[in-house]
Structure formats: structure tokens, C-alpha cells
């Protein structure tokens, strides 16, 4: 047997073994070769705003021109891979062919919501940029910051394209008036007015704050740049209730739209605390009960004077031994009265004091001119003492001097009125009123003009509780001094507390002290969604979190519909949404219970104008579009200047997605080579006699 060079053989054998070993390792780790798709064309979402404003501003032809520009510029471009969407309130995918047929009929413009949806739509897929064709008139209330920030972080530029340059539209418009949610009487409140101007650079314009056609304040505004400018006003509402205001700018020559130079708003002014001035002619149980009730109400600030001694009373001690203080007639009836919201005259015979005709005129003005309120109680002293005085004109009854000292039962004629309502439903309320205890003594009177008798005496039919609106204010008359019996003689003394509380609320028109309050904006545009807020408190004005809240909405055609109410984050707060598809007055009613215990009810109303959001604002919001572009590192164009190349859109990652994979270990030749190597190695060893 011939033996070759054993050293050379060994080397070859080692080499073969190492090669085979590498191949085995190769098989164990099973390597793959990935073939990537190379993206040279960025994927771009093309968003086309088809809301009505796109046509309202520019006319049908211009919207067609815009569409043509999109069709000609984008699909023909090989620079981008466009995915088309139309948007208004909703976002819908469309093909390039559908763009031509697109009509501007969307009812709202929700740019922010659309960007949000686009981000979700492309989740997990590549989105390199967004081209947004819009006038920028976002009219669905949403915060833009979060969404824009997200686009910026994801490195997706938004190319904002407006249909034409805004500078070509000469106009001044009031865009927004920011007012605080809660406004208190006698507390200064700041208003911020956003005014949009184009084509008036270098000019000076006047801005007026008006209430009921009276100019309250005016500001002069120097227009330095076109776009948005803020003007601030400070006002201190003097009276509580709903006050109508408007911001107005005179029409300047060449303005495209003169209707957006005026914007109305309503302030619901709440009294800081209801200030009650209570003047009582003599100490009595009526005073004691009423005072105690008013004192215990946390929403009321009470100042009271009781006449403890008349001039004919003789006290055998010096004045220094008495706690009596002088009755400051002049101060009260000339000055102080105007600092109060409600004046109570309880069996108060003015003629016993140096109260002049002018003082009584001041009381009348306090109600009719200043919009304050009066509660006048008789029963011991007849209301007829005020005959032929200015106060007589305020009385909701025509009083007689006669006082009938008889027990009588109180009959509620308007049990559903806010003052007498003691239960949530009519039958329970009637039941409570039927069980009310008897009262005693009544001052004879008959109903006055334009007055409402809420409760009368059984059999006698004389008015007992009567109300009326007098000028700007409200008056209530109680012709018995024994209303306290509703507390002491009743199974539930809280009924008395409730009636008094509700009377004060009605008189002072105070929403803030209602246990159940529903808040809504005073006006909406058709197709808006009204967000309603409901606050529920218990008798001690603590928020109730687990209340059963029933909400009913009556649309302008009178149809009532129950609306679902949801508890909100804040304790005692509830919310609901109502879609507004009809124009006119909507009425809303809410009732709240805490485990079958009636907490209260409230009603409110608002007006829906047959003006869509889309026709309300007829300017391009260039600033908003620029802001979106700037914050996302995109670009801003007017449509005439737009082209894809200028947009500089590039794919974020050129190599993306695995197009396919090659499993190298899975190939047959690899195994053949391995077998071959082992075979050769075996053969050589055998030949060399190593086996």
C-alpha cells in the first residue's frame, strides 16, 4: 500500500473538517437573508377639506379650480405615493377619480380630528407626510396642541395648502370672545376678544363693548399686521342675572363681509352672596322663624333691623341700659338699600318713621330700575298703609285695611312654580301641599294687575302668596304673619325652609344657590353638539356624586326626549350631549334625586340659529394653517404656488418592510457540499491509512 505525505494529508483533512464544522454551525443557527423594499417614493396622505366654507368663501368655480390643481399636481407626480381622503366632520378614503366629483357640502370642519384619525389610520404603516387642503376654519371645539405635537414627534410634516392667499380678502371679523365660566356681580371680569383683520395694515379701528345698545367701553386698535389680534375689556357687572352684551366694530370700506363685525354674548351673572336687608316692624314669631331660616342659609348675607320699641313705649331705664340702636332711616333708604339684592318689609309701617316720599321712591327704583327684589309681609300691619305711595305701585295685590283673624288652610294654586315646588313630581307635590298645616290671620287683598297668585286662603280665596315682576325687578307678597306654621305645625319643617329658600332664589334670580343647576351656552349653530353640565348639591350645598339625574330636552317642534346623563370627574357634576339638528328654541329640564329624595330641578333654554358654522366664518384662517405647518416642520402654500417638488417630501426611512427572506440553510446544495466534504475527508483518511 502506497503511503503519501502524511503531513499534507493531515492538513487537508483538518481543512475539510473545519469546513464541515462551519457548515454544521451554519445549519444550527439557520441564517436568513432579508431582501428589503427600497422606498424612494414617500407615502403621503392628501386631505381635502370639502366643508361648505370651501365653497362659501371662494365660490363653486374656485373650489373646482382647487380640485383640478390637486388632480393635476398630485397623481401625476412620481415624487409621492398619495392616499386621498376627503374630510369635514368625518374622514373618508377616496380614490383619485372621485376628487373631481367632490362637492363642498360638509357641515363642519374638523381639521384636528382629521389629523388625529389619519394618525390612527396609518398606525403601523409608513406615513411620510400629510398634504392638507383647507381654509383652516376649524369649527369643532378641540385642542390642537396635543395632535400637532404628536405629528411633530412622529416626524410627519404637514404641508398646509390654503385655497388662496388670505391677503386678497379685505376683511375685519370678530373671531372669538373668551369670557370666564362663572361671573359674579360686582366682581371685575376680563374679556378677551380675538379680532382677525386682512388688508387693513396701518389703519386704526374702533372696537366697542355694548350692552343693550349702550356703549360701555371702546378701544382703539392699531393694525400692525394682518391676522389675529387680541383686545381686552374689563367689566364689572352690577346686577345678577343674564346680561346681553355685544362686541361691535364699525364697517370699514372694502370689507368682504360686514356681518362678522358684531358678535353677541350673554353673561350669567351670579350674586356673590345674596344680600338681604330685612326690616321688621315688631318682634314676632314670623321674624324669628324667617330670620333663623335666612341666617342658616350659607348663600345669604343678612342684615336685619327689628323695631323693638316704638316712640310711645316707656322704658324706666336710661338708653345706656338698652341694647337698642337708632334706626338709620336716611342711610338705609338713601344709600345702603342699593347694596342689597332683596329688601324684606315685614309688618313694617313706614309712617311711624321719618321715611319720606323720596325714600319710598328709592324703594320703587331699587326694584324697577335697579332690578332688585322686594318681599313684603303683612298680617299684623295691613299693606294698605302703603296706599298712595310709590311702594303701592310695586305691590302684586290691591290691599284692604282689613285683617281677618281666622284659621285657614293654604291652597297652592301653582304648586309647580319654583317657589312652591316641594317634590319632583306633581302628585307628590300636591300631596305635600294638601297636608300643610293651617295658618292664622290674613290681610284682605285682591290680585293686582299682571300678578300671579301662587297660594290663596281656603274658603276666603284671598291671595296669600302673590308674585309679580315690576320693571326690572321682582316682588313677592305674603299676606299672613303665620307662615312659620309651615315649620312648627308641619310634619316636615324643611318645607318651610325650602319655600323661603326658593322664594329668595326666585326673587333674586340666583342660579348659584339652586341645588340642581343645568348650564348650557345660550346660543348654538345648527348641527352643533350642545354640551350640557349639571351640578347637583344636597340641602347643605354639598356636591352629590351618586344622584339619579333625569334630563329631558324639548326640541323647537315640541318633541321631548330623555337624554342620558353621565357623571363627570368632579364630584356632583354631570354631563350630557345633545345633537342640534333643528333651529329654534330648545328647552332643557333636569330633575335630580338622591335615593328617591328629591334634590331639586332646574330648567334652561338655548337658541339654535339656522346658520351653519360653515357660513359663519368666511375667512381663511391662514394663521392656524401656518401654525400646523410650522410646528410639524411642514410647509405652507397658497394653492397657486403649491407643487409637490417645493414641498420637499422625502420618505422617512428609505429601506422599510421586508420584501422577502432567503433561508440560506434551507438550500439542498448546502447539504450536498457537506456530505461531499465528509466523503472526501473520509476517503483521504482511508487512503492515508489513518482509519
Amino acid at each position, binding site marked *: 500500500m502506497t503511503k503519501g505525505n502524511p503531513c499534507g494529508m493531515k492538513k487537508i483533512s483538518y481543512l475539510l473538517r473545519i469546513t464541515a464544522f462551519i457548515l454544521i454551525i451554519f445549519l444550527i443557527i439557520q441564517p436568513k437573508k432579508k431582501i428589503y423594499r427600497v422606498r424612494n417614493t414617500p407615502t403621503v396622505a392628501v386631505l381635502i377639506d370639502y366643508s361648505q366654507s370651501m365653497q362659501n368663501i371662494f365660490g363653486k368655480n374656485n373650489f373646482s379650480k382647487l380640485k383640478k390643481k390637486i388632480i393635476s399636481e398630485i397623481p401625476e407626480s412620481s415624487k409621492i405615493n398619495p392616499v386621498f381622503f376627503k374630510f369635514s366632520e368625518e374622514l373618508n378614503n377616496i380614490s383619485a377619480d372621485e376628487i373631481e366629483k367632490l362637492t363642498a357640502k360638509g357641515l363642519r370642519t374638523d381639521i384636528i380630528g382629521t389629523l388625529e384619525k389619519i394618525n390612527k389610520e396609518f398606525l403601523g404603516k409608513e406615513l411620510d407626510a400629510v398634504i392638507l387642503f383647507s381654509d383652516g376654519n376649524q369649527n369643532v371645539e378641540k385642542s390642537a396642541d396635543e395632535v400637532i405635537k404628536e405629528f411633530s414627534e412622529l416626524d410627519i410634516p404637514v404641508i398646509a395648502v390654503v385655497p388662496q392667499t388670505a391677503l386678497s380678502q379685505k376683511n375685519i371679523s370678530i373671531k372669538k370672545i373668551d369670557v370666564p365660566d362663572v361671573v359674579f356681580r360686582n366682581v371685575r371680569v376680563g374679556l378677551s376678544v380675538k379680532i382677525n383683520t386682512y388688508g387693513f395694515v396701518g389703519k386704526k379701528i374702533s372696537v366697542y363693548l355694548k350692552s343693550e345698545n349702550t356703549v360701555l367701553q371702546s378701544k382703539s386698535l392699531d393694525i400692525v399686521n394682518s391676522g389675529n389680534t387680541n383686545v381686552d375689556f374689563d367689566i364689572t357687572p352690577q346686577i345678577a342675572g343674564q346680561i346681553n352684551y355685544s362686541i361691535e366694530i364699525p364697517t370699514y370700506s372694502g370689507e368682504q363681509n360686514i356681518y362678522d363685525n358684531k358678535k353677541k354674548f350673554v353673561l350669567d351673572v351670579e350674586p356673590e352672596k345674596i344680600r338681604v336687608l330685612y326690616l321688621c316692624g315688631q318682634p314676632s314669631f314670623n*321674624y324669628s322663624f324667617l*330670620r333663623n331660616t335666612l341666617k342658616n342659609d350659607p348663600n345669604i348675607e343678612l342684615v336685619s333691623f327689628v323695631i323693638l320699641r316704638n316712640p310711645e313705649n316707656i322704658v324706666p331705664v336710661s338708653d345706656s341700659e*338698652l*341694647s337698642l340702636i337708632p334706626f338709620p332711616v336716611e342711610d338705609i333708604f338713601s344709600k345702603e338699600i342699593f347694596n342689597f339684592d332683596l329688601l324684606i318689609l315685614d309688618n313694617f309701617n313706614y309712617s311711624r318713621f321719618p321715611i319720606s316720599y323720596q325714600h319710598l321712591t328709592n324703594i320703587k327704583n331699587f326694584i324697577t330700575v335697579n332690578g332688585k327684589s322686594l318681599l313684603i309681609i303683612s298680617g*299684623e300691619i295691613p299693606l294698605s298703609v302703603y296706599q298712595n305711595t310709590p311702594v303701592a305701585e310695586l305691590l302684586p295685590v290691591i290691599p284692604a285695611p282689613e285683617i281677618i283673624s281666622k284659621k285657614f288652610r293654604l291652597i297652592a294654586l301653582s304648586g309647580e312654580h319654583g317657589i312652591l315646588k316641594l317634590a319632583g313630581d306633581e302628585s307628590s307635590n300636591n300631596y305635600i301641599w294638601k297636608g300643610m298645616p293651617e295658618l292664622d290671620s290674613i290681610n284682605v287683598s285682591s290680585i293686582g294687575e299682571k300678578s300671579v297668585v301662587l297660594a290663596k286662603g281656603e274658603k276666603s280665596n284671598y291671595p296669600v302668596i302673590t308674585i309679580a315682576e315690576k320693571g326690572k325687578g321682582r316682588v313677592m307678597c305674603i299676606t299672613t304673619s*303665620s307662615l312659620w306654621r309651615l315649620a*312648627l305645625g308641619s310634619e316636615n319643617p324643611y318645607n318651610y325652609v325650602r319655600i323661603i329658600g326658593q322664594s329668595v332664589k326666585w326673587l333674586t334670580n340666583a342660579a348659584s344657590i339652586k341645588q340642581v343647576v343645568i348650564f348650557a351656552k345660550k346660543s348654538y349653530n345648527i348641527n352643533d353638539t350642545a354640551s350640557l353640565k349639571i351640578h347637583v348639591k344636597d340641602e347643605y350645598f354639598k356636591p352629590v356624586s351618586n344622584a339619579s339625574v333625569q334630563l329631558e330636552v324639548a326640541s323647537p317642534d315640541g318633541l321631548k326626549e330623555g337624554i342620558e346623563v353621565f357623571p363627570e370627574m368632579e364630584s356632583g357634576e354631570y354631563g350630557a350631549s345633545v345633537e342640534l339638528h333643528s333651529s329654534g328654541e330648545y328647552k332643557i329640564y333636569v330633575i335630580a334625586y338622591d335615593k328617591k329624595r328629591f334634590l331639586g330641578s332646574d330648567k334652561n333654554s338655548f337658541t339654535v340659529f339656522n346658520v351653519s358654522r360653515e357660513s359663519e366664518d368666511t375667512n381663511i384662517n391662514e394663521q392656524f394653517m401656518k401654525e400646523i405647518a410650522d410646528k410639524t416642520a411642514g410647509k405652507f402654500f397658497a394653492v397657486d404656488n403649491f407643487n409637490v417638488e417645493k414641498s420637499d417630501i422625502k420618505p422617512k426611512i428609505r429601506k422599510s418592510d421586508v420584501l422577502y427572506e432567503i433561508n440560506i440553510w434551507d438550500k439542498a446544495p448546502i447539504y450536498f457540499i457537506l456530505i461531499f466534504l465528509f466523503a472526501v475527508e473520509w476517503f483521504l483518511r482511508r487512503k492515508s491509512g489513518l482509519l
Partner: protein
Amino acid sequence: MKNKKLLFLLFTIHYSLFTIHCLYSQQGGKFVFTQLSYSGNWDTRPTAWDRISEFLTISTSVKSVQERRIVTIPDEELFWSPFLVITGDSDFEKFSDDEIKIIVKYIQCGGMIFIDDSSGKKGSGFDKSIRDMVIKISPDNPLERIPASDAMLKSFYLLQNISGRVITNRYLAGCKIGERYSIIYSQNDLLGAWEKDNLGNYIYPCDEKQRWEAKKMTINIIMYALTGTYKSDAIHLPFIKSKLK
């Protein structure tokens, strides 16, 4: 004879109805002095109200019903009487649970009780019975000393001290419910200071200055029942402060 009996019966019914009418129908906004009739010696100072009423009318603007109203606990008239006076000088049978419930309701609905111990002795039988009753009526707000700064001591007269026909305690006690005292308890025989015989002589001896102070205290309690904490209102404070100097 039968006709006479019938006539008498009709007269009696008519008189009773007339009396009731006089007692209750004239209340209106007037103050009514209502006294509780109970199983013990309840009417220890029967003429006090006549004197108080007279004095009250002369010296203040309070309009009051002249007749004293006497009620028992179950009487419906109790709830026509926001001011209830309980007097006595000896222990009495405990009120039943139902009676206690009625008094509790009376207090909760805004009634006020003035208790006057006519015995003038500390730890009297009346005092023990009253304290037992008050614990049941107002377990959460027991009797406490009414501070000298309270509105009761300045509701009409400016009083520095607590007086009475006898000075058993230099304080009044009370149960405070809400912002005012709903039960006021005097052991100083305040009403005894008013009692006079038909000839106009005081029945119970007392130093005249002390009697006058007791009368002022009584008027203040009535004023307190009618005006509550009125004299604690901020508007009165500077005036009262300067007068007390």
C-alpha cells in the same frame, strides 16, 4: 225644664267655642305665652304672665295675646305656640316616650322651651325631673351654661349678670340647637319676681333691685324667643360695645 237644660247646654257649648276662638284666633303675628300643664305642680306662678304682658306692651313694640295659653303635650295647640313655658317646684311624673317624641319634634320644628324652677333650691325635685327630661329631649346638645356674651343677655336690656327672685345660679343653662338656644333653663324663679296679689303687692319677697333685674331678664328671654340672635349681628356690636363701656 228640658228646654232650660238644652238652653244651658247650648250656652255652654257656645261659650266654650267663643273662649277657644278668643284664645286662638287672635294670634296672627302676636306673641303667645303658652304654659305646659303636666301631671305635677305645673302652675306655680299663675299671674306672672298678666304682669309680664302689661309690662311688655308698655315698654316694647311686642304685640301679644293677653291670655295665657295652657296646653298639654298631646294638644295640637302646642304647635301653634313657638314659645312654651314650663314651671314647677317639685318633682313630677316622667313624660311618656310618646310625649318625649312630641317635644323633640316641637324643638326640631323651631319651638323654644323656657323652664323656670320656682323652688329656688339647688337640686330640687323639679330640677332632677327637668334634667332627666332634657337628656331625653336633647341627648346630642345637653344643658350647658349660656355665656354672658350671648344675644339673650342683650336682646333688649343690656345685662351683665343673671338674676332672679332668688339667685340659685349665677347663670342660665340652655341647649343650643343650630345658632340659638332652643331650651332655656333658669333655677332662679324668674317668674316669681312678677307675681302680685289682687291688691297689687308682690307675693314673693325679693330685693327690689334684684327683682328689677329678674324682670329685665324675663323680657330679654321673650325678646330672644322673638328675635333670636339678632343682637349678635355685626351691625349692633359697636353700639353695644360703646354702651357697655
